[in-house]
Structure formats: structure tokens, C-alpha cells
């Protein structure tokens, strides 16, 4: 998943799916997306971290689903008609689902229009920890999700231990 950042220097066009979490827009590089599915029944797994909502069945495979909102320290998801589960492929080839409030559009950005976020900024807020860069387009700005941070377990442990 480190490639996400490496690609920045290549000078090409990258497609992003723009999603909405709370009132903020986030972009996810399309190459890490396996599938986008409607909200479906999630089977709860007992005794795991709160952000892990459970598991779902994607084409016969058991896929864990996590709440990005809860990871970001926001309030619990409110499931609406627009809620979607985005199935991501992790570096090791596993699938992980993340719940988002809404999927807005597909956005094509020139790599030169993506600004990396300085490391110091990352510490500012919980949300910012998951942002790897900011993309400029005619309609405004979009934060690019750092998927490594989103799906990593390590980050969470630090977070949950500091929270407790």
C-alpha cells in the first residue's frame, strides 16, 4: 500500500472514489478497491474492538468490516440508504470492508495536483491521522485516505490503549 505514495512522483492520472464520512470528502485510490456493496447484515463477532463491526459474506469469503468513523473517533455510524461498504484489498491480499456514509463520485486527479501532507500535521486530530495527502480539483479539495493507516491493527492498539 506504500505504492500509493510512490505513485505520486510518476506523473500520471489516478482515479479516486470520493466518499463522504461525516461532512468531509475523502478519496480512495481505485486500485485498492475490490468492490462496493450496499449495506447488508453484518454478523457480529463477540469480544473484539468496537470499531470492528463484524464479518460479511463476499462471494463465499468471510470479510471483516470495520467502521472508519469509530476509528477516527467520530460517533457511531447511522446506517442510511446511502451507506455503503467498500471492500478493500490489503497488501497481503486479504479483503477488508469499511463502512462509509455515502459514495459520491469517481474523480480523476493528476498526480501533480496531489499534495502530500506533512508528517507533523498528522498528529493534529484523529481524522488527520488517516489522511495521506490532499488533492485539488475544480470543485475544491479532497483528502486522500491513507489506507495503510485505516486498515492497520497497530494504529488501533495505540489508539485504544491511549483511550483507555
Amino acid at each position, binding site marked *: 500500500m506504500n505504492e500509493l505514495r510512490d505513485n505520486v512522483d510518476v506523473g500520471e492520472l489516478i482515479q479516486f472514489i470520493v466518499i463522504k464520512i461525516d461532512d468531509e470528502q475523502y478519496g480512495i485510490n481505485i486500485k485498492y478497491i475490490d468492490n462496493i456493496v450496499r449495506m447488508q*447484515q453484518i*454478523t*457480529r*463477532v*463477540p*469480544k*473484539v*474492538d468496537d470499531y*470492528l463491526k463484524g*464479518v*460479511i*459474506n463476499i462471494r*463465499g*469469503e*468471510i*470479510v*471483516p468490516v*470495520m467502521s472508519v468513523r469509530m476509528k477516527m473517533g467520530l460517533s457511531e455510524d447511522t446506517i442510511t440508504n446511502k451507506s455503503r461498504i467498500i471492500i478493500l484489498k490489503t497488501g497481503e491480499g*486479504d479483503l*477488508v470492508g469499511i463502512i462509509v456514509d455515502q459514495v459520491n463520485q469517481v474523480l480523476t486527479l493528476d498526480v501533480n495536483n496531489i499534495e502530500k501532507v506533512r508528517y507533523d500535521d498528522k498528529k493534529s486530530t484523529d481524522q488527520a491521522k488517516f489522511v495521506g495527502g490532499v488533492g485539488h480539483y475544480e470543485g475544491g479539495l479532497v483528502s486522500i485516505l491513507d489506507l495503510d493507516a485505516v486498515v492497520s*491493527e497497530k494504529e488501533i492498539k495505540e489508539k485504544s490503549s491511549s483511550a483507555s
Partner: protein
Amino acid sequence: MDVSQYLSVFLDEAKEHIQSLNDNIMILEQDPENEDCINEIFRSAHSMKGMAGTMGYTRMQNLTHDMEDVFSDVRGGKIKIKSADIDVLLQCLDAIQEYVDNITENQDEGTDEHQNIIKALADIRNGTSGEGAAAPAAAPAAEAAPAPSADTAGADGSSDYRAIKLDPSIKSTLEEAVSQGKKLYGVTVHIQESCILKAARGFLVFKGLEEIGEIAVSDPSTQDIEDEKFDFSFSLVVVTDESKEKVEEIVKSVSEVEGCECGEFDLNGAKTTEDKEEAPEAAQATAPAPAAAAAPAQAAASGPAGGKKPVGKPVVNRTVRVDIEKLDVLMNLVSELIIAKNSLISAANTSGVSNSNVNEQIEYLESVTTNLHESVMKVRMVPIESVLQKFPRMIRDLNKTLGKKMELTMTGEDTEMDRTVVDEIGDPLMHLIRNSADHGIESAELRAQRGKPDVGQIFLHAFQDGNSVVIEVGDDGNGIDAEAVKNKAIEKGVVTPDQAALLTEKQCVELLFHPGFSTAKQVSEISGRGVGLDVVKSKVESLSGEVTVRTKLGEGSTWVIRLPLTLAIIQALMVIIGEEKYAIPLDSIQSIEDVSPSDIKFVENKEVINLRGSVLPLIRLNEVLDTESKRNPDEDMVVVIARKGDQQVGLVIDELMGQQEIVIKPLGKYTAKCKMISGATILGDGEIALILDTNSII
């Protein structure tokens, strides 16, 4: 020649030969005169030498060659194997094993020449027989056939057309042919030692010669040549109109033929089978082989040549070697099929199609998938034998290093288990056996004091019990001293003295499985590195099995490993807890009971029930799983009685759904935190049910 493609065959065969050598040398130690055994060893050593030579592993070839020489002398009656020699032979085996290991790792045999072993082997040969050196080194076939046919065998000991014996009827046919003006040629064909497909080369020679004439007789017989039952040369007599040069040209045109000798075949000079002294061979129809190659089985008793026959090259096995990964793929497909079948059943149920035809077909499909699953499972099953084979040798070595007298008896080596399980179970078993040898069996003096036989017994029993395989490893030694274990545990800080006081004897013994626990007063090389039993336990548990121990101080102890037959598809009881569905593996369930809430008693503030005389703790699964029970508290409860070892508990559930064949799917690392769930399965309607791991709940 590129031999890399034969590497895996070479390695497989080398392992088989090493094992066979190992077994036979052990037998030889008990019974130094055992001829079958000596023949078997000779044959294995000889095959290994040939294989190593073909593959270009010269050091291995040298070593096996020297080993073969020793047994060649033993067969010839020049020397006898003494018990001291057995050690040398076993060392030699270890050295060969080392070569094989090196080859497995990096395709290179390594550089160790094991000169000391080669010298020791030479000493064995010289020890009693000064003429040891007389045994020709380069001609194994000559060694194979020293006695009866030595006079007729060719100078290099391999097959020779002049030695062909004729059946009287064939002789008369040949005489007739000669009188018709045809010519008889005897041909001896030598095939390169590096040739892999000897039989095919032989076939090509036959085919070529049959174009110009008729092959009257061959040695060994055509059938044996096709079955590769010959060394590197064979002879035949051909009846033809063509010239000798033509015959030679045809034979030499076949690739990998090293050379051939060809000459007029002198009918009168040839022996007939009637000249032969051995009666059973004369009874054979056409041209029996002169000792060198495939002598009939009866000869086994009468001459050393018979040794060629029994196991060296088994009659072509109708088997295929399949990559385990391919079987995994097949297994996954079967799993998918079963999920699809389950979906079909639930779809038929919910859509209300109660057409009897549909139901019939679904039932048929169900039986087919169940059979398919069983067959695929069986294909993956291998006898546990491959793992157990190395233990007798290990015990023998331990006898010497520990200075104790011990004997290992094993039963149920043919018990079959999933290949993946068999591969993993070797180390835990080895550890338990070493443990028994090191800690279990007492010293000779103590055994005498206790009135036990001076040879300590270590046993290993494997057997199938329902859907699981049980392996028991035990000894008639000291047993486990619960007090000593407890004291040690306190000393090591595993438990506090207060906790220890509350432990039952059984719980004390179970402390042995605690990580970093070793009761050995001295750390020896055999066991007692402190990473023992907990590793055994975690390994067994990683295979979804369990390990328990039964022990009696002064009388011995038995470790019991219980493993599931298969890891991918199991029978499970589907239950509802709260609003969620869970699967409980059927293996771990003893019975299902209805229990009235008024029957619940309290022991130390914990709920228990009295079931047919035994008191079982109750576990309310909805509490463990953080969910609300939907059942009215006054109603009778459904209790699943589950067991772990000989411990039983009652698991309170809300509702039963029934039994179902389920496919286990891994949950992945994110949910690894939850130990109570061992996996998940997909139900017919696509819904997910989690599989409860009763072992960790109990």
C-alpha cells in the same frame, strides 16, 4: 544430461531406501543371521548407489558403494555382522541422510566425504576377511550373482548371450531355423548406467531387431525387461537373414546403449535348461534367467541371487504422485460445492417449492456431495506410519545415551490422517517419547527396587475413534509427582503458594503444560529445555486437537493426543443464542438436555447442574458472547453438554436448529482477539454463522 527433473523422484526414493535400511539394520541387530534382511540391505544400498551415481552425487555414491561392499561380503559369507558394526552402519546411514538433506535444501550433496566412516566400513570388511579387497568394486551384478552361474557369467559379471540357457522346445525350433539357412546371432546389449528408462531402451532394441528377424529367446525374459527387472545389460538370440553387422548397427542406433557384443550363436555350445541342477527353475517355461537378474521367487531360499526379487522394484504400482496443493484446490472446490448445495436446500425450502421431484434431486445431490467430500478427504489421508518410523531408532540411540534399558512398542501405524496433520504431528510425538524416556523411565536400580522388569516399556498407540484420531504415548515409569510439580511451579513463579494450595492433583499435573516449565533437575540434551510440553500443547491445539495426561505416581503416565480427522469440513450442531446463529462442532458434544431452572444448584457461587450423578458447571453462552437471551427465564433451558478431555460442562443455548455439514472458513487476523470463535461458516441463505471453540470456552 539434465537430471534436475528427476530430483524429486530421487529424493523420494532415497528417503524410502534410507528408511528401509534403517529398519533392516535394526532387525539385523536383533538377528544377525537374517538373510532376507541382509539381501534387502544390499539391494537398497545398491539402488542408492546407482541413483546417486546417475544424479552425479559422487560422495554419496562412494559411501553407499562401500556399504554395499560390506553387505556383499556378508552375503558371500566372508564376514559376519557384529553388534559393534551396527553402530558404524547406523553412522553411515546418518551420513547418507545428511547428503540427502543437503540435496533437498540446495541440490548439492555437500563436501563432507565421511572418510572416517568409509574407513570404518573398510575395517569391518578387513576385520575378519583378509580377501575383502578381492570383491570386485565396479561390478555389482557380479556380486549379486556369485555362486551358481559364476562359471557362465561374463567377465564383468553382467549378462552375456553365451550364458543363455535354452528350453528344449526352443532349441528344436532354432535347429529347424538353422537348417533353413537362417543365421543365429547372440547379442548382449549394454545400456548406459545413467539411463533412466532402461525398459524403454530395451523395448527399442527388441523392436528394431524384430524388423529384421525373430527374437527366439532373451535373458532376462521380455516381460522382465519391460518391467525393468535387469541391471544394465541383457542378452538375446535373434534368428535372421541379415548379417551380423546389420544386427549390431540396429542395436547401436538406439540411444543410451553403451555398446553391444554380437556373435554367432552356437546351438550346440548352449546349455539347455535340463543341464541345470535347480529343479524349481527348470519348471519355469521359457529361458529362466541365470541368477543375475530376475530369478524366480523359489530361488530366494536356495541362493543369494533370489534376493533380487521381493521388494527392490515392486510390481508397477498403480498410483500417481499428486502435489498437495492440487488436493487443496480440490478440497476448496468441494467446500464451495457444499455451500452451494446448502444454499439450494434453503432456497427450495423458503421458496415453498415442495415438488417431490425437486426434493428427491436435492437429496441425491446431498449424498453425492457427502461422498465426494469423503473421497477427497480419503485421498488426502496418509498413514501415520511415516512419522512413527524414526522412533525405534531414536529409542535405540536414547538407550545408549541415557544408559537405560527401554523398549518401544507401537500399534496402529496404519491409522490414517490428513496429510497436513501428519506432517505437523511428528515433533510433538517425538517430544513426548523423549520425555517418557528421559523423565518417565526410572534408572535400572530404582526399577529393580520397585520390582519392575529391568527393561522399561514405552508405548505408542494410534487409533481412530469416531471422527477423531487418538494417539497415546506412555511409559511404565515413574509417573508424575504432582507435589513436585506444584513445588516447582511455585518456585518458578508460575503460581503463588496460595493458588497452589487450592489446586487439585489433576490441575497440578496440568501445570506441566505451562510455558517455560521443566521439571528436569538437570537440563539434558534429550529433553528439558523448558520449551517442551507447552509447545506440544500449542501445536496440537493449532491442529484443533487436545492433549491430556493420565498418570499414577510410581506406575507410569500416558499422554493422550486427540486430533480431528479433517480440518476443513465438519459436522456441527447449529444453535441460536440471542438473535445469532452459532455452530458447535459435533465432536465436542456429548448430549443435549432439557433442564428446568429449578434444577440449578450453586457451588461456590457458580451455577451447576446434577446430570445422572455427576455435577457439571453451567455456562450461559449468551453471557459469554455478550448478547441477550430471548428465552423466558422460567422456561426449561436447552443445555448442550460438551466435553474437553474428561471434563464436562453444560452450555446453555436458546434454541436448537439441527445438525449440518459445515465448511470452516478462517476469520482472519482482525478477529483473532476473540479466542472463543475458531472460524466461521456460510449458511445456505448466505448468512454467516460463527463456530464456537468449546475448548477455549470451557
